């Protein structure tokens, strides 16, 4: 498995990277950790004449926690996310989810930016970011834009990011309440058969707000507003949970693959969501 030849660029700052993207147009792609792109290049399913490596751009690094606002530079790796104690305190769901991505080696290289920008429906972070109502920050020739994660994904590998833009950071408010990321997979290193990100807030015995997103159950991540609404104002009892599952099932559209046929995935999605809700509720 040998990739086709390409030219390599390692710009030292964002303007240089953007200029290279402009200059080479369709022929250029940026690379962060490369653990999605490089296998595709090796299988010659992606041809990239100009590869723009973002590793030397310091502005894309760093985890910032300003009060309740959290900003993750695009080049923050899954490993850094997991290791960051401050982040684990204010948004434990990130560590819980990141630990379920790929394997240790891949997590040293894989970045939050690459995971969300690639548009691979199998990636775990897009659904989580939708659950968190995160904002994706992109910079292009026209300047900076902020795109809500919930409107970023159009179809598999197609996103609201223009080809001449670079995703620089993601930001979100520290979630309150109980959180859970539940993922079923065949083994370490696999994409989800079904995964659910759930954040619930409660007041007394009542759920006051719920956000639910599902992964790898459609060609885009699915933030199910209706599923969240089905829990809000309820005691998160079995009836409410069944309503939330039914609402979620109306929003997903899984495809059959080696992990199983559609009917299995739909059933599993319901089970995984029920577990995520129960766990988040127990933590709320």
């Amino acid at each position, binding site marked *: 498995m040998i990739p086709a030849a390409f030219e390599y660029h390692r710009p030292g700052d964002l303007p240089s990277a953007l200029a290279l993207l402009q200059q080479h147009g369709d022929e250029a792609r940026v690379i962060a950790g490369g653990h999605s792109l490089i296998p595709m290049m090796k299988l010659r399913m992606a041809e990239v004449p100009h590869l723009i490596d973002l590793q030397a751009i310091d502005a894309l690094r760093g985890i910032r926690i300003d009060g309740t606002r959290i900003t993750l530079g695009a080049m923050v790796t899954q490993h850094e996310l997991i290791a960051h104690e401050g982040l684990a305190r204010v948004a434990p769901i990130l560590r819980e989810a990141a630990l379920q991505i790929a394997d240790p080696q891949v997590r040293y290289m894989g970045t939050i930016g690459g995971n969300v920008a690639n548009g691979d429906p199998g990636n775990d972070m897009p659904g989580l970011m939708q659950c968190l109502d995160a904002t994706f920050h992109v910079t292009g020739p026209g300047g900076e834009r902020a795109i809500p994660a919930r409107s970023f994904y159009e179809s598999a590998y197609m996103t609201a990011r223009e080809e001449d833009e670079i995703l620089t950071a993601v930001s979100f408010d520290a979630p309150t309440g109980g959180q859970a990321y539940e993922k079923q997979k065949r083994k370490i290193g696999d994409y989800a058969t079904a995964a659910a990100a759930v954040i619930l807030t409660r007041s007394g015995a009542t759920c006051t707000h719920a956000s639910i997103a599902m992964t790898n159950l459609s060609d885009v991540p699915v933030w199910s507003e209706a599923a969240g609404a089905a829990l809000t104002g309820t005691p998160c009892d079995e009836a409410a949970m069944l309503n939330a599952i039914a609402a979620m099932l109306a929003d997903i559209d899984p495809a059959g693959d*080696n992990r199983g046929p559609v009917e299995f995935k739909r059933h599993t999605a319901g089970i995984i969501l029920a577990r995520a809700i129960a766990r988040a509720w127990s933590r709320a």
Partner: protein
Amino acid sequence: MNDLTPDRDDRTAKLKGIGCARKRVEDARFTQGKGNYVDDIKLPGMLFGDFVRSPYAHARVKSIDTSAALALDGVVAVLTARDLEPLGLHWMPTLAGDKQMVLADGKVLFQGQEVAFVVARDRYVAADAVELVAVEYEELPVLTNPFEAMQSDIVLREDLTPGTDGAHGPRRHHNHIFLWEEGDRTATEQVIASADVVAEEMVYYHRTHPCPLETCGCVASMDKVNGKLTVYGTFQAPHVVRTVASLLSGIEERNIRIVSPDIGGGFGNKVGVYPGYVCSIVASIVTGVPVKWVEDRMDNLMATAFARDYWMKGRIAATKEGRITGLWCHVTADHGAFDACADPTRFPAGFFHICTGSYDIPVAYVGVDGVYTNKAPGGVAYRCSFRVTEAAYFIERMIEVLAIELNMDAAELRRINFIRADQFPYHSALGWEYDSGDYHTAWDKALKAVDYAGLRREQAERLAAFKRGETRKLIGIGLTHFTEIVGAGPVKNCDILGMGMFDSCEIRIHPTGSAIARLGTISQGQGHATTFAQILASEIGIPADSITIEEGDTDTAPYGLGTYGSRSTPVAGAATAMAGRKIRAKAQMIAAYLLEVHDDDVEFDIDRFTVKGAPERFKTMAEIAYAAYNQAIPGIEPGLEAVSYYDPPNMTYPFGAYICVMEIDVDTGETQIRQFYALDDCGTRINPMVIEGQVHGGLTEALAIAMGQEIAYDEMGNMKTATLMDFFMPTAWETPHYTTDHTETPSPHHPIGAKGVGESPNVGGVPAFSNAVHDALRPFGLRHTHMPHDHWRIWKAAHDLGLHG
């Protein structure tokens, strides 16, 4: 004598002989990154070869345009079938008596088939050139199902004349390869027709792949000055490769040197002869420089040696009390596009007729139909002796189904049908002579070790809780008692391409008392350099640490048939002991001379010969070795060497009792192995540490196969599991902790009583895992569901039983 006892223990310990958990001598280089695998070999001027492969499972090749590839800087040659045809090498014989295209000759028959071979300066240029070879295909209808293939008008093998016999007799359809039968069909069918109880089931053992971590590859180097061809490669049988290469190329065997360097796991994958080897050799002959070919992982999974793919229809008959009275089996065997199964010539279904297992079954019949389909060729024994895994899975599933039919505990059903210890040597209804065994003892020990009754109680409690809606997890107890047949084989009925399946050992004792032994086998991780030295240490009294073991270089090693089918210890291990005994016999004469007594008045004692009745008078083996070379001894020629070619009188029959306790989540199909107990009886135990390691590894391969690993195709013949994302190999996280145990029933015909163990855990492991899944769902009416038991298939089984409301 008593005061000598500690001394004898000490001397025995120093030998590190049979029974010692000796640390491995191989590990120094492997742990320091100094292994020498095929892809580590670099020769001056070496080129790199890569294949253009078919994207289609069945298509006519209309044209191949190599001009753009040849125009690329760094490309030296592009070979197609037309280039190999004048040499008669566009096809090659398979190990099963069929023939196989080396490069596509007019059509392709499976996805990934080799179409053209690009030779270039390095692997990067070769990969670029592969992209530039333009092949025009005309797609043909695809057959991936053997039952359909046997009915279809579509002719897969147009090269075979309809109506002519194949290598194993008449072919009754153009996609039929052979029908092979054993046992008494009429008598078996009569027993079944009049039996109290008959259980019937179709048991599919799915297609999978050995997938060693190192793929297959070679470096071929034709030295045109000296006329000598050297091939370094991933060969589990280097001497056979030399003979085959000589027969195909016309180069005299003395001018061919085959070297198997360190091999990164074989598991059967590296028994086959692949187009890559042939093309590399031809390319080196054509270019006059060395040519390396190393598969990538997709090539490996798509094109080299699959395993299993047996549809086994079974009927088992019994009395009301559970005494088995007969076993009937018909197999539809999917061999893919070419019959390239690696089996001894007379056994096109390998040793599948060991399928009466550990049980005393008076009458049995087996028929196997081999069928061509548009899938990769192969059919190797993936960590098992030829088709024994399929046989063990079949009988251990049939026993479980019969237990359901009889409403009986499956452990008890096994116990009342075991061959008794006093029945050995035991003649099975399908023609085997089991050498030794004590199944009842092993079984009772296993059941006691896991507290079988306690487990059944816990399982019943869980079931009750499940029914009360308190849990969604069930417990399954997977039982297996397997009997292996390994160590092929007696030359009188086991050969490969006419080459008898003996093996060999050649020993040289050096004057100062260290030694080298060379064998016809080749380790792929089994630790031969460690364990064969232990056998020899016990036989000749030289410490294992002073004995070098060498294998794999046909210029230096004696001829042997290689390492697969757990045959190294039963056959080459026996040769080692026998050669050692020849050394000892000569040493005895030398010792007697040195001690000035008659030959019969000295006796071997651990590391020396002593005068009988006067143990203080002795000569150590080191002293004897020195004398053998440096002292003129009347009537004895100088030197201390021996060679033994061992033709075993029978195969060996290792056995074991495995118990797997599994939790199953009926909602998601997820499983967790809570406990796995493995009792193995491999006869005399040479190195307990190595045996335990083999069992751990084999069980993990069994776990993979039973629980998810498969080579799967869609209806178009596209391979769906061509990378390690989809081809299941468990990590440390999914792999459970294993408890190992043993009994020790030596083989009566093996010089040291050893039977071989490497493959037992795969043979016994697969039914143990599978039976656990079945056992969990048995209370809800599950009889049988096909492997692999991945999440969705378990879910589907539970779903079909109505467990999802």
